[in-house]
């Protein structure tokens, strides 16, 4: 009977504890890297580097912690769309402020 209660679309993938711990170490290292990088003055590069590192960290959180890597592709497509939408609106808004006469 148990098998009937199981959902039709459940993927059987148990992520091992070790995998999560590896990702945690990686995320902490990335955090410390971004702290160290912003202590050195790199001008406009600092902003770009800090945001790129934040984006890399989020992609690990999304793919591993939030299971996007193992989930239906639909979720990845939708998340990508929402992220691109936010980026597009930020870019368009800033273009207006940068180039308005």
């Amino acid at each position, binding site marked *: 009977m148990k098998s009937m209660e199981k959902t039709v679309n459940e993927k059987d993938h148990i992520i091992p504890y070790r995998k999560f711990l590896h990702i945690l170490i990686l995320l902490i290292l990335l955090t410390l890297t971004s*702290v160290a990088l912003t202590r050195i003055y790199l001008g406009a590069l600092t902003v770009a580097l800090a945001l790129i590192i934040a984006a890399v960290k989020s992609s690990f959180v999304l793919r591993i912690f939030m299971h996007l890597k193992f989930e239906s592709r639909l979720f990845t497509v939708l998340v990508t769309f929402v992220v691109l939408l936010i980026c597009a609106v930020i870019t368009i808004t800033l273009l207006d402020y940068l180039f308005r006469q």
Partner: protein
Amino acid sequence: MIAKSEIYRDDLASKFGMWLFLFTEMLLFGGLFIVYSVYRYRNSGAFHLAAQELSVTIGTINTIILLTSSTTIAMSITAIRKQDKRMALLLIGITIILGLAFLVNKYFEWGEHIRQHIYPGSSVLSSRGQGDVLFYGLYFFMTGLHALHIIVGLIFIGFVTTFISINRINSDRYVLLENCGLYWHLVDMIWIFLFPLFYLIT
């Protein structure tokens, strides 16, 4: 038992619903990030000076706390699927403690600002000019809204903990724990962006 097993359950749909809610959260914070970028662009000097007053140490510690709590809640799903209820409860307990530790740090951090009369509407802050007012207004609003999400997340985790202990969440039925994890990870992800924007980029 037979009647129960015939109830149709769609975990994917539950997760889909949770993701749709998370999208609205992403758009909410996305909107605030737009406001931040524009105000930063228009008051770069003041934002530069004001950001230097925030403690990078507390910010870094809180980032590591949240990253660790995200890991423990993700690991609790592995534990529940391996039918290790004690391990799942232990991991989720650590998540709650870390979430509370984040709030305690936030309390001391905000307390320090308020002691120095830096809070929205204070005369000391107003006298420092528009750029500082905008920086601290956004700082208090965005980190405050984030802290509110931490509190909601902790209440959510509290319910999930109860459900695990009474076996309503088990190795066969754990989508609520997964959804709770998704919410907690999103709150973590928002902090991943708030941290460099307010503490690091000076």
